[in-house]
């Protein structure tokens, strides 16, 4: 995973709450077996509407999405994160993220920064009054800067550390492989195994 320290890019105000994963990427795009190339799928239903924010310059070149509360609710599809990244987003700001979406973002190097709703409102106004305003998301200091607005954001320490270091999760866990092996030896015998198959 690439290291993430700070990013500056055009902010995109998405004035909507409960942006669910079916809106971020509809299920029809989940049939693909690749991990990249999902940029066309991002918000595909909404992008058919010419007035949608990503169909307007300069927002179509945005890389920091500023959304309403409860962003990423619904399904566990990591494709939602891949689609945002493939489109060019590096960070999403919201006052509340769905847990699985936030977890998936952390695995993929997309920064899900939790910003107080009052600050989100200020940033929305700034971005709407001066389209094209750059937003800086600094993971080192956990702050967002947009025009004259400086706002703190929340992210859990462990995800922040992994993003800053660009570390691979599986590699980190496998450092503790002996613990896993030791645990496996203690599992009760009554627990089920899928193999061999026992059929009804």
């Amino acid at each position, binding site marked *: 995973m690439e290291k993430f320290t700070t990013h500056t890019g055009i902010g995109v105000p998405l004035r909507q709450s409960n942006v669910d994963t079916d809106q971020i990427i509809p*299920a029809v795009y989940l*049939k693909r077996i690749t*991990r990249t190339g999902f940029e066309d799928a991002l918000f595909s239903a909404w992008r058919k509407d010419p007035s949608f924010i990503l169909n307007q310059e300069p927002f179509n070149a945005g890389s920091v999405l500023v959304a309403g509360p409860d962003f990423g609710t619904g399904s566990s599809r990591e494709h939602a994160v891949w689609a945002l990244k493939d489109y060019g987003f590096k960070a999403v700001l919201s006052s509340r993220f769905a847990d699985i979406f936030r977890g998936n973002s952390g695995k993929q190097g997309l920064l899900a920064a939790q910003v107080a709703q009052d600050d989100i409102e200020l940033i929305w106004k700034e971005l709407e009054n001066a389209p094209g305003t750059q937003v800086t998301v600094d993971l080192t200091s956990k702050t967002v800067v947009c025009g004259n607005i400086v706002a703190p954001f929340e992210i859990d320490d462990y995800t922040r550390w992994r993003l800053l270091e660009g570390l691979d999760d599986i590699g980190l866990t496998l450092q503790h492989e002996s613990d896993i092996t030791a645990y496996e030896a203690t599992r009760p015998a*009554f627990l*089920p195994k899928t193999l061999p198959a026992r059929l009804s």
Partner: protein
Amino acid sequence: MAKTLAEKVWDAHVVRKGDGEGANAQPDLLFIDLHLVHEVTSPQAFEGLRLAGRKLRRADLTIATEDHNTPTLDIDKPIADLTSRTQIQTLRNNCAEFGVRLHSLGDAEQGIVHVVGPQLGLTQPGMTVVCGDSHTSTHGAFGALAMGIGTSEVEHVMATQTLSLKPFKTMAINVEGTLRPGVTAKDIILAVIAKIGTGGGQGYVLEYRGSAIRALSMDARMTICNMSIEAGARAGMVAPDETTYAYMKGRPHAPQGADWDAAVEYWNTLRTDDDATFDVQVDLDANTLEPFVTWGTNPGQGVSLSEAVPSPEDFGDENAKAAAERALQYMGLEAGTPMKDIRVDTVFLGSCTNSRMEDLRAAADIIRGRQKDPNIRMLVVPGSARVRLEAEAEGLDKVFKDFGAEWRFAGCSMCLGMNPDQLDVGERCASTSNRNFEGRQGKGGRTHLVSPVVAAATAIRGTLSSPSDLDPAPESAAIRTDAA
């Protein structure tokens, strides 16, 4: 120290305790007892293993099935949609390469992953269960800690059989009282979500408690736990009891003989201690609950069926007001319209929420001897091939077909329309599934989430209806009070 059920299950699975506070403090590493796999969220994970030269650590704790893309008609023919066919074939290749047991289309154990696990007896109390699917919360009905994960975590579990998990908070959902006839588990969970909101459960493991929960069957408990994710929760659980054990006993992968006794002894410890405390308590009165239905585009936008479509002005919060305005526009609804005046085009009985035997029986009991509204199309999609076989053995297929409903093969189907079962633009559906998001069941489709008995009554009357709205059936078909 006194513990909640969730804390007990968590503590029993800690492979390596977290490092506590600090910038690079790793969270607890938990062992995963069962990994369920399907075709949509696994291909990139298998590919990741291959690229890194890693092995699948525990094929014997992994099981796969085909469900999201599978057609519910003509299942003996090649899948018409090429990308769907490729995705299914990719799963078959991956399972063969990594030695994973797979139940393919046509196999008697194929079906929705969350129906298959419990029906085989692989889901058991006290286990940790994960799947690259948010509705994994279903398995919490057995007192398992069951969570949906993304593809990166799927790969992590494949490689290590563990997950690093952040600590959770606990929420008790206390449902006391007795459900009235025609009111079901689905109505309980829709009412809970309307009460706490789609983000209300965020960061929490919910434990459903109280006399109304204890009175529910396993199928009904699965319906409730299934939709925990729609409240944003990390998981939902019900403590195991005699109902759980009776369901488990004799299932193919349930423990046998001395193992059964040892298991039951352990399972009996899986209850929240009397002096344990929850971070939050939520109470719901089962006695006064009515059939529930959604009017909007998230599962929290629901009301009692006897109420009317709310007005955006009813919401104090500006974001909720804007969301309601947008939802009414998308749904093509006017504020103030009685919910029961809303005419629907399609009724979908299926999905991991409501596609088990009890759901099919409850709907069949309503429609038996009655006529379908001629303008309604009704799809009945059993949750698994096994459920379909059992239903046919009871003659339920005939009840549905005589009524004029389509009796389909098992899969996720119209819950998310990854196969050809989709709504058209503007088509309105009463659906027993779990999500009423914009376009979820097909581009431009409009979804009202309902229980199986409301779905059945709606198919008869053509408008959103509860069983109590029906005229008596010619040959009296009693409404089951224990229905899912």
